[in-house]
């Protein structure tokens, strides 16, 4: 048997992916065999996964999930697809983390921010000029659903306080703290340590300026509790937040979330 665009299809020895396409999707002009693009005359083997795509035509959610599973291997993708994360603060860190997690097909994201997009945000935050004035939650939802329409999203649009956090975020697998305000950063970690005993946490501290790339670290504070940044570079006049270094930190956070989801690093005990 072959898997062809998520349907089973009988295998015959000697058949090519072009033969498979001729029967199943004659308009296809892009042939993916086990996650990798191949030419139409490539022979298929019993058990192969074929994805047939017509360029310029938007693939369905099911096709996107099939492509991701083929690319990441199915055992990994099912864990990603079943994970829920929360991103608190949708600025330079949060908007980039959301993009990375959307692209790998995370199951569900809770996106939290009360603010609107201002022109000064666009030196680092993943929004567009024509989105100035929109709520960041609404704009980011639009943007990441264009990257992956099969995501499940929940938007939290109110301004958060420490006491609200457990009620909103206790059920997520990983909470990613991307706030700007250091008081809310501290409040979030305090809340996770005292009230959210099963939630893994990835915080951030020290990401401003254009300092050395390799000073940005992911430090395990304790099992399931990680802090990303150089822990000293504070955003202030003369040392602003800029896309490159903020992006390094954001992708530390995203990869750490992925490592926790896949069991490569410890979650909470």
């Amino acid at each position, binding site marked *: 048997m072959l898997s062809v665009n998520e349907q089973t299809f009988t295998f015959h020895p000697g058949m090519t992916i072009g033969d498979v396409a001729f029967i199943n999707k004659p308009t296809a002009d892009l042939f993916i065999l086990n996650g990798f693009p191949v030419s139409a005359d490539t022979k298929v083997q019993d058990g192969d996964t074929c994805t047939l795509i017509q360029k310029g035509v938007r693939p369905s959610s099911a096709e996107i999930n099939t492509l991701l599973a083929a690319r990441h291997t199915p055992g990994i993708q099912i864990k990603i697809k079943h994970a829920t994360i929360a991103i608190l*603060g949708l*600025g*330079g*860190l*949060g908007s980039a983390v959301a993009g990375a997690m959307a692209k790998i097909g995370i199951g569900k994201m809770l996106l939290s921010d009360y603010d609107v997009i201002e022109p000064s945000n666009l030196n680092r935050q993943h929004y567009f000029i024509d989105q100035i004035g929109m709520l960041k939650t609404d704009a980011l939802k639009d943007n990441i659903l264009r990257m992956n329409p099969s995501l499940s999203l929940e938007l939290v649009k109110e301004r958060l306080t420490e006491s609200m956090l457990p009620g909103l975020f206790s059920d997520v697998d990983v909470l990613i703290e*991307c*706030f*700007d*305000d*250091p*008081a809310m*950063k*501290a409040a979030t*970690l*305090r809340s996770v*340590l*005292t009230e959210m005993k099963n939630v893994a946490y990835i*915080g*951030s*501290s*020290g*990401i*401003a300026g254009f300092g050395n790339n390799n000073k940005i670290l992911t430090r395990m*504070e304790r099992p399931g509790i990680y*802090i990303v*940044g150089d*822990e*000293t*570079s*504070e*955003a*202030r006049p003369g040392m602003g*937040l800029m896309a490159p270094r*903020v992006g390094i930190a954001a992708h530390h956070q995203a990869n750490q979330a992925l490592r926790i989801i896949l069991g490569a690093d410890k979650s909470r005990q």
Partner: protein
Amino acid sequence: MNIILNGNNKSLQKPSSILDLLKSLELMPETVVVELNTTIIQPNSYDATQFAEGDRVEIIRFVGGG
């Protein structure tokens, strides 16, 4: 008096509260998380909580930017 601060010995010259220690370290109380002998201390108790000999204190500090 001696306490263990983030794994290192630190001697305090006089009886000190958490708030006194944060001030001496030039840390803003609202930007840190303080754990005393494995208990997270709420900020409204920083002033009233006095250290005892041998206390183990963890301070996790955050700087702004996101």
